[in-house]
């Protein structure tokens, strides 16, 4: 009943102030995102800007098949994606195990090992593995056909058949096979997608700011004392307050994201994954607001939030331009150190790759950070018991 009281009053407050709230937390950031997206469209033409993977190959098999694989990886076509280097310089070390060639005929599974060094990325390593898998599939299929032909036909027939089959293969798979992989991995964000994420973060910081401010008002006008004078424990108050704040954050995140989704301009991937990110991201936002309002005084908390909003906005708006300067060092820094990096990168991965694997690290990190903040805040809240306010 007490939780219901908190949730109901939060929703009544939202309903009674719906217009200003929806304008501040939905319409305003969406319009900003759309306008910025529209005027920066040229800068976001999808391009093949996925970095070339530096690979080193260790061939422990030295078979015809392993040499074929190496030749494939070193082919002109693959140079758009991979570049062979010495063992010490490679970001991805590909080890072809002994018995690789024989495994095709023996129908055994002898996997090729791909070591991703500190400089490489696991995601791109997976792309590399996928390319090699496709090559192996083709090789295996080719060898099966070759063996059957060897058994059944004479030399002239064999020649004609080989030409026919390989002709068809190259039409069916050929370069398309590799191209498919390339197209998937090289997808980059459109300007609308990029700015939808930037202004989603902006909106989240605004919501955090509003919640933090609300928390100070509750303390300043003694509402906190009045509630705590009722039969309610500190833990109950803390949790119920968080739940109502969480629903507030989630609601405005949902409105923002689904407005873009309905417009078809962003967040158009898997619905389930999107909801998962929203749930966890809203949790993080709620916990941040609890942490700030608990440990900082009003002026400092508002100051910190304003600085975060400014840095986040500058990072998001200038990201594309910065990525073209000095080998993208500044853009890389934004990727790592922007206040909203965790959220932005999770959404970027969602939009580019659209699978759970690509967002799981972001989701897990946001969740863990939220849990840690929750534990610290609850401990601090119970310890203070309102005395410091």
């Amino acid at each position, binding site marked *: 009943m007490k939780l219901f009281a908190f949730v109901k009053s939060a929703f009544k*407050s939202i309903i009674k102030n719906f217009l200003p709230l929806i304008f501040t937390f939905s319409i305003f950031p969406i319009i900003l995102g759309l306008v910025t997206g529209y005027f920066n469209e040229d800068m976001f033409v999808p391009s093949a800007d996925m970095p070339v993977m530096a690979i080193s190959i260790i061939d422990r098999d030295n078979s015809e098949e392993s040499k074929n694989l190496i030749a494939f990886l070193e082919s002109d076509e693959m140079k758009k994606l991979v570049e062979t280097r010495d063992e010490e310089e490679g970001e991805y070390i590909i080890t072809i195990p002994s018995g690789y060639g024989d495994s095709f005929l023996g129908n055994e599974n002898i996997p090729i090992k791909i070591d991703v060094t500190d400089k490489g990325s696991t995601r791109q390593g997976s792309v590399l593995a996928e390319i090699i898998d496709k090559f192996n599939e083709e090789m295996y299929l080719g060898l099966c056909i070759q063996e059957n032909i060897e058994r059944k036909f004479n030399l002239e027939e064999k020649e004609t058949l080989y030409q026919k089959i390989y002709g068809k293969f190259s039409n069916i798979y050929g370069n398309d096979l590799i191209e498919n992989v390339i197209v998937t991995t090289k997808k980059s964000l459109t300007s609308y997608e990029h700015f939808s994420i930037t202004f989603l973060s902006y909106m989240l910081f605004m919501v955090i700011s509003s919640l933090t401010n609300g928390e100070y008002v509750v303390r300043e006008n003694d509402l906190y*004392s009045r509630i705590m*004078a*009722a039969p309610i424990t500190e833990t109950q108050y803390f949790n119920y307050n968080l739940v109502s704040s969480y629903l507030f954050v989630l609601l405005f995140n949902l409105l923002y994201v689904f407005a873009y989704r309905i417009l078809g301009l962003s967040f158009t991937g898997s619905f389930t994954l999107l909801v998962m990110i929203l749930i966890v991201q809203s949790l993080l936002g709620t916990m941040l607001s609890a942490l700030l309002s608990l440990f900082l005084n009003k002026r400092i908390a508002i100051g910190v939030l304003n600085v975060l909003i400014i840095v986040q906005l500058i990072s998001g708006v200038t990201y594309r331009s910065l990525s073209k300067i000095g080998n993208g060092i500044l853009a890389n820094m934004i990727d790592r150190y922007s206040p909203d990096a965790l959220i932005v990168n999770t959404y970027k991965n969602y939009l580019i790759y659209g699978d759970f694997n690509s967002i799981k690290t972001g989701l897990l990190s946001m969740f863990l950070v939220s849990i840690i903040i929750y534990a610290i805040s609850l401990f601090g809240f119970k310890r203070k018991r309102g005395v410091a306010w």
Partner: protein
Amino acid sequence: MGLIEVKNITKRFDENIVLDNISLSIDEGDIFGLIGPNGAGKSTLIKIMTGLWDSNGGEVIIDGYSIKEEPLKVKEQIGLVPQEIALFEGISAYDNLEFFGYLYGLKGKLLKKRIDEALELVGLEEKRKEKMEKFSGGMKRRLNIACALLHEPRILIMDEPTVGIDPQSRNHIFEFTKKINKENNTTIIYTSHYMEEVEMLCNSIFIIDQGQEVAYGSKKTIKSMISNNDRILLEVLDYKGEMILAIKSLTGVNECIDENGLIKLLVDKKDFRLEPLLKVIESHGGQIKSINFEEPSLEEVFLALTGRRLRD
């Protein structure tokens, strides 16, 4: 044993002693005045009594329950009216009341009934659906009190409930405070800067200054602490000039001032007798139009005990 027992409460913030060994007892059905200047420790004492803060020493027992050990049982019996307007601005009067009703475990028809009663008591039944931000200061104050009455608490703690409001709203608050005390036998703890309010409402008084007890007891006891003198105001017609000298010579009369027919006497309660005074007036041809006995005001008591005015 009183309904509320405060025993040797001490509260420190770092090295500052905010409450120094405070003890008091409040009987059920009493209207208890807690008075003192700003920063005297009134609000700190209230926060400790309502379980919001811990004390550094001593204990508060309410209806046999310790606030430290069984805070929820104690809190169920208390309605707190904070000094500030502690309400949600963005929602209606009804929604505010509903929120606090839920916190005290009320629901359904009972909650609706209690909300209606509380709104009627504070005279806001017509404004139930209006947003708080449209309310005047007096209306907000009344709603602030209504929120504390929903669960029909045995103890109502009113921390400066009339700050910044018009006389009409103030009178309204006095009326229903007396009413709930009389009809429900609700024990009321009332803090105020306005001595006349405390004087008018309260039976027992605790004066606190700089965290220490200055005076404590019934209103009469406290007033007698500073003086044995009473003041008598006489309105006399057609008297002769020598009458004042004759009155001054009476036993127990310490002072006699004539202000155009209004005679102010300061008399010693122990020695003064009324009969000789009446005879002197009669013998000088005077006709008594009115006679009033006055005790010193609480403001005077406070001034005498602390050396400063309450609102200094």
